[in-house]
């Protein structure tokens, strides 16, 4: 037991046993739930994800984040979301122009990387890869369609839509 000396000759004994008990139990619990996934991503505060029974884990940070009020591509805000849709000034042929321009840059960068990197699949050389999207569950498919159209123009055709895994 640790002892603390006071100003007078009396010593106070501090009982550390309960603290050690709590520490050891807390550490056991946290070690057991410690994630060794390749990607650790905190869901954006402005987003509620829909639940799903999928077992496919997230393997990359989402490139597109659609909160209740804005659309971000690689952490850069590109458009506002007002009443569940983007303003007309940002729209062109059903797609979102600022999203398209950012994704075009990302597509070029991905193509350069996959051209020079060693990949197992020869078809993946020079490809743009998949796009991970994190979207609030309250948004309508109309907004998702606009973003997918923009991505389609930038040559992205594969999507990974983030969902919250159901607890079993």
């Amino acid at each position: 037991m640790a002892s603390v000396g006071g100003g007078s000759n009396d010593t106070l004994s501090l009982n550390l046993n309960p603290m050690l008990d709590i520490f050891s139990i807390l550490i056991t619990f946290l070690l057991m739930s410690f994630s060794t996934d390749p990607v650790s991503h905190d869901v954006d505060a402005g987003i509620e994800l829909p639940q799903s029974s999928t077992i496919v884990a997230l393997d990359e940070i989402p490139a597109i984040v659609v909160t209740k009020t804005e659309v971000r591509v690689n952490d850069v805000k590109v458009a506002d979301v007002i009443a569940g849709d983007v303003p007309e000034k940002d729209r062109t042929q059903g797609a979102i122009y600022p999203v398209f321009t950012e994704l075009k840059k990302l597509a070029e960068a991905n193509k350069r990387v996959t051209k020079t990197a060693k990949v197992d699949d020869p078809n993946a050389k020079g490809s743009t890869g998949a796009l991970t999207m994190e979207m609030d569950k309250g948004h309508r498919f109309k907004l998702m369609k606009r973003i997918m159209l923009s991505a389609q123009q930038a040559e992205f055709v594969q999507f990974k839509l983030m969902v919250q895994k159901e607890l079993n």
Partner: protein
Amino acid sequence: MSRKKKKRSIAYRDVELNIMPFIDVFSMLNTFLLFSAVFLSVGVLEVQIPFLSSQPPPDDPKDSRIFQVNIDVTKDQVEVQTSYSRPPEQAQKFPFPNKPEGLKQMHQKLAEIRKQNAATDKATVFSDDEVNWESLSAVLDSVMLRVEGDPIFAPAKDAKSKEKAELDAKTFLYPKIVMGSVMLK
């Protein structure tokens, strides 16, 4: 002469155990683990959209009559449509309410359809603009994911990795989902 065993007295000494380093390590470990703890598990649903190409679609006479599965999603209803790409099309429609019970029934129907047409591992989803993402994700769950009791279909032959193909066969009912509504106006 008997020898008397001499009793040796064992001297006990007070030993102080210094637990301060122990507390230091525990508190550091605790802080690190609390900051890195993930209390929300996140997954993904993989989908594709139609690819724009200036080249004409491949016209392979061998595969000319392909079995197609389409899912039409509205706010109130989810309809499974099956048909062949060439005559006789034998089109069929199976409507279900867009509610948890309806989605369960739709999943059972899709499992039967997949049993009869195991080679078709792709489903095309057409969604109304007004359907919200939460509802659509429930439909995608129901279409894509295999549940206990569903048959396991043979892994795709054109798969790049045998292990991944076998895992996909155990995980998915329809592994390929195409969002058919995503077309330029």
